C-alpha cells in the first residue's frame, strides 16, 4: 500500500498569489517579468498592480539590471522568468547587480528541474541551484508545495538581501500544513526516524515521504527533512541527523554537482561525517517527455530513493 498524498497546486501558482497578497500591504514590492508572466504567475500580481509591474519582453539581462537599480532605491523587486533563463542569462548581472552590492533583489525561477517536461532541455533548469549558491550572500530556496511556497515568499520579503526561489511547473503533492512555518535556512522535519535520514527539496520531498513509508513497512524508520533552503544549509539539523540516524540519502531535481547533495556533503564533512547516497540527474541533460516519465527515466522517484537507502544502509 503506497502512501498517497493529496495533489495541490503548482508552486508557481502559489508564488503569484503570495506576491499579490504581499503587494497589497507593501507598496515597495515591484515585479518584473521577461515575457513569461502568465507562466511564472507574476501576472497574478501584475494585473492588480499594473503601475508596479513591468513586463519588459525577452531580455533577462536588462531585467536583472533594472531590479538592481530599483533595489538601490529601496524597492523590493521580484524578477520572474524560467529558472534556466533568469540564472543562466542573467548571471553576470546577478553577480554585479545583486550579489556584490548585496541588494534586496528577489529572483523567482520558474519551471525548475526536468519536471517542466515536454518543452525539453533548452527550457529545463538543472544548473540553477549551483549557479545561485555560487553567488555570495544569496539565499537559495526550493519549496516543496503550495503552502511552503506561500511561506517562503513571505520569508523572502522579510529577509533584507538577495534571495533565489525555484518554482515548479507541475502540480505538487501537499506535504505541509496550510499554516506551515518556514524559516529560511531551517529544515522542516516531516517524519522522524533513526534508521537513516532522507534530505530532499522541491518535488522530491513527496517522493521522500513515499519512500520513507515503504521503508517503514520493512522496519526501517527514516527521518525526512524538507531542506527547502540549500543556502544557507541547516547544518545543525544535518549534524543532529547524522548522530541520531548515521546515514543519508539526498534527493533533488538538479545536476549532481553544486546542488543540495553538494551542500549536504560539505556541511556534514565538517561536522559529523556519515555515508551519503545521492538521487539526482547526474552529470547529463534530460529530454522532452511527460514529467513523470522523465523523473522515472532519469532516476528521481521514490523507487530511486529506496534503492539509494539500501545502498547507504549497507555502508552504515
Amino acid at each position: 500500500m503506497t502512501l498517497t498524498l493529496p495533489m495541490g497546486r503548482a508552486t508557481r501558482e502559489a508564488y503569484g498569489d503570495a506576491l499579490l497578497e504581499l503587494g497589497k500591504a507593501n507598496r515597495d514590492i515591484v515585479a518584473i517579468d521577461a515575457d513569461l508572466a502568465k507562466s511564472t504567475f507574476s501576472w497574478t500580481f501584475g494585473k492588480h498592480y499594473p503601475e508596479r509591474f513591468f513586463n519588459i519582453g525577452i531580455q533577462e539581462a536588462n531585467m536583472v539590471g533594472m531590479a538592481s537599480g530599483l533595489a538601490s532605491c529601496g524597492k523590493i523587486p521580484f524578477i520572474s522568468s524560467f529558472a534556466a533563463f533568469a540564472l543562466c542569462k542573467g548571471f553576470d548581472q546577478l553577480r554585479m547587480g545583486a550579489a556584490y552590492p548585496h541588494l534586496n533583489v528577489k529572483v523567482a525561477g520558474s519551471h525548475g528541474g526536468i519536471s517542466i517536461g515536454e518543452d525539453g532541455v533548452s527550457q529545463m533548469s538543472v544548473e540553477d541551484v549551483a549557479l545561485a549558491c555560487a553567488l555570495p550572500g544569496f539565499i537559495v530556496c526550493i519549496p516543496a508545495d503550495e503552502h511552503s511556497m506561500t511561506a517562503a515568499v513571505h520569508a523572502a520579503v522579510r529577509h533584507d538581501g538577495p534571495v533565489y526561489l525555484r518554482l515548479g511547473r507541475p502540480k505538487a503533492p501537499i506535504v505541509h500544513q496550510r499554516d506551515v512555518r518556514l524559516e529560511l535556512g531551517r529544515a522542516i522535519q516531516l517524519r522522524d526516524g533513526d534508521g537513516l535520514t532522507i534530505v530532499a527539496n522541491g518535488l522530491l520531498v513527496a517522493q521522500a515521504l513515499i519512500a520513507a513509508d515503504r521503508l517503514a513497512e520493512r522496519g526501517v524508520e527514516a527521518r525526512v527533512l524538507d531542506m527547502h533552503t540549500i543556502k544557507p544549509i541547516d547544518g545543525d539539523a544535518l549534524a543532529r541527523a547524522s548522530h541520531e540516524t548515521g546515514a543519508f540519502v539526498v534527493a533533488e531535481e538538479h545536476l549532481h554537482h553544486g546542488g543540495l547533495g553538494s551542500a549536504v556533503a560539505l556541511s556534514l564533512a565538517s561536522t559529523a561525517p556519515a555515508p551519503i547516497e545521492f538521487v539526482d540527474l547526474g552529470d547529463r541533460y534530460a529530454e522532452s517527455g511527460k514529467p513523470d516519465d522523465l523523473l522515472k527515466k532519469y532516476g528521481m522517484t521514490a523507487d530511486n530513493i529506496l534503492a539509494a537507502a539500501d545502498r547507504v544502509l549497507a555502508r552504515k
Partner: protein
Amino acid sequence: MASALSAVPSVHELEGIARSLRRHIVRMIAAANSGHPGGSLSAVEIITALYFGGVLRHDPKRPDWPDRDRFILSKGHGVPAQYAALAESGYFPVSELTTLRQVNSRLQGHPVQGSLPGIEASTGSLGQGLSIGIGHAIAARLDGRHYRTYVLLGDGECQEGQVWEAALTAPNYELSTLTAIVDVNRYQLDGAVEDINSLEPFADKWRAYRWHVLVIDGHDLVAVLNALHDAREPRDVPTCILARTVKGKGVTFMENNNEFHGKAPNKEQLEVALSQLEE
C-alpha cells in the same frame, strides 16, 4: 541642498577644475602603477560639467539623500575621473585618491556600490549601467520624486547586447528623466572601435530606438553643458548625448595613443603629464 546649485563656476573656472581632475587622474594611476588613463581623461569634461557645472543635484554630506540626482558610471574603468570629482566635491578627502587600487582602500579598481559615498552601482563588467539607470528612473516615478538619472557609457561598451536591451526599453517607458551620455573616444582595448566592430551609424541607431539624440564635442564644456540642459527639456523620451572625445585628452603622448588604454605612466611620463596639466 547641493552646493553646486548655489554657485555655478564660470566656464573658465570649470576648465581649471577639469585640469585639476586630470592631474588627480594621472597621479593616482601612476601611484597605483595600474589603471586606465585613456578612458578616464576622455571623460573629464563630461564629469566636470555634471559635478561642478550645476547639473547634478547632489550633496556630498548626504550621499543617501533620496532626491539626489543619480550618476552611474557604466564604463567603470574610467572611475579615476569620478573618484577625482567626488573627492573635489567633498565626498572624501583628496588625500585618499592615491590609495587607488591598493589593498584596504575604498577606491577599488572599478566602482563598487557601498564602498565609497557617491558610487551608485557596481560596474566594470561592461554593458550593465543603463539597465540599472532605468531601475532608478522607474523608482523615481513610483515614488513621485523628481531626481534625474545620468549614465555614462563608453562607445566600445555599446558593443554589448544589454546596452541595446536597455536602449529599447527606456523610450517605451517614456523615461524622460534618464540621460545616457556616451564617451565616444573611438578606441577600445584592442584597437579602434571602427576596426574591431563598428557602431556606425551610431547616432542613427539611438534615433531608431526613439531616443532624443545630441552629438557634441565632448571636450567643449559649453557644448556639454548645453546638451545636459537640453536633456532636461520636457519631452517624453530619454536623451542620449554622443560626446565625441579624444582618448587620453590633455596629455599629448596619451592622446589617441591606445597604449594608454590600460597602462599607467611611469615616473618620467608622470612629470611630463603634470607639466602639461599645470594650473
